[in-house]
């Protein structure tokens, strides 16, 4: 059932919050969840294999300064900051290039934040 959850699912934020880690692992896209301090708290198997890193190397690390420096800019990190500062929800999908295992890889990123939700998410879908 969960493996049919599409990347574009409109109400995806709430669904992710309620999913167990094992279910996150069976999704067709990468999931990185982080808390109010920008520390990584969820990291699914797809993301782990895209990046070539086991979850234990990433969990508890600061997302934008350590785990994903290439998202530390106005296109990604800034949008989370802005949403937080303005107390509004964020659900944006952008075309992006990640350096997965040091190779430039075109992806779609979906950025999710809500003023009430426990976690914020970056979802990563390989393009093409």
């Amino acid at each position, binding site marked *: 059932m969960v493996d049919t959850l599409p990347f574009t699912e409109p109400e995806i934020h709430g669904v992710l919050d309620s999913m167990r880690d094992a279910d996150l692992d069976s999704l067709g896209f990468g999931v990185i969840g982080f808390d109010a301090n920008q520390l990584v708290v969820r990291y699914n198997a797809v993301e782990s294999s895209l990046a070539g*890193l086991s979850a234990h190397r990433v969990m508890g690390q600061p997302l934008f300064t350590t785990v994903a420096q*290439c998202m530390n*800019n106005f296109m990604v990190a800034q949008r989370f900051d802005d949403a937080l500062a303005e107390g509004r929800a964020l659900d944006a999908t952008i075309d992006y290039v990640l350096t997965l295992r040091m*190779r430039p890889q075109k992806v779609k990123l979906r950025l999710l934040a809500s003023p009430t939700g426990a976690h914020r998410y970056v979802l990563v879908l390989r393009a093409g």
Partner: protein
Amino acid sequence: MDIAEEYEALTQFLYLAPVGIVQLSTDGEILLLNPISSQLLMPLTRDGGLANLFTILGDVAPDLRYQATQFAPPQGMICDGVRVQIDAGVRGVRDPRVLSLSLLKLDNERMMALLSDVTTQVKRERMLRQNEAWFNAILTGIADYALISLDATGRVNEWNPSIGRVTGFAREQVVGQLYSRFYPDDATTHDRILDRLHEADANGWSMDDGWRVKSDGTRFWGSAVIVPLVDRDAATRTLAGPELGASVPSVEAIASLLESPDESRYCLIIRDITDKREATEQYRRDTQCDHLTGLANRRAFFEAAELELARFRRTPRRLSLILLDVDDFKGVNDRYGHAAGDALLQRLAAVLVGTFRQVDTIARVGGEEFAVLLPSAGIDAACGAAERMRLAVDAEAVEVDGEPIRVTVSVGVATMDGDLMEFGALMKRADSALYAAKSAGRNRVVVSAQPLAAAATAQG
């Protein structure tokens, strides 16, 4: 640790590395890169893609592709820690962003690039460099120099035999003349003569290297330092703000300091360093010049612009900017190849150098985009020069592999006025005029509509 574990540790090591590392094919295609590279390069891409380093850096380091293709040895450093200026910065808010770039050829297929943000470092170094220039002037090459005493307006007020020895001029040819006597005709302006005196007052000295002339018209490469002889600060401070004046000089003392025109106020020292020119010029070429065209690079251009703007703020005067762009340059590249495009840009650079004055800063600021900064030139002078240049380009065919190629340029001209506080604003005006020239059918000069409502359009 097993191999998989170790591989992962290495992967993370690269993810975390605080400098950008990129592996490329020799034509610039990106094969591998770490996240910090992507963070540094992403804002420079037009399409958000990270496919080719030469393309990504095309606007800010337009000569990189040329440098790489011209590099003949099978391996070695193509460039080492070259400073690439990303933008002009915002005065008082943000320093101009500068990247350091090294390019290493590994073999005939691959290169490595190293990237880091050196914005803060560059700022520090600039201060150090000035100190170094000063010590250099004092400590080296004191074999011969002309010692020239200037009054408050920059006129030579005393004869000294060393002037005759170095420049060949006689007393009566020099005394009472502005110190521009020792400069080639188009290498300085009256504003610039006074600027250097002001800068000597403000900084304790003002230094510039360049061509100087002797009495027989021959040129020599000279290093000139102007040093103020009295502490004018005390006088001007008192005049400007009495609240600072604990020990106030007498009104008479101040008046005599500022008004006695014959008094020596500055010492100008000119040294003939022709024999050192090659070494200093090489250094200047490496750091300040575009490798393909030999014109100023972006970094040198923005530095010159910043200095001119500071001068404008102190004493508003005429200052104009010309931006020009080769029409359909992409078409030339597509049809005749990059080498032909390069040859064409080199020829265009020669036309620019032939058209503008020595005192103007002529720079390559993008792939096929050039900028000329014209101190002490108003809109009419700037337009006149721009139009002459446009006609010269239009009239001449460049021969590449026996085939004549004709190109034209579109030109935007803007001039500084009191409303503009940032150089970026002047750039914007010139850029809009350039855009208007393109939209109106290319091969023409358009003057920025502001500040004069009745802007002239010279058509081709």
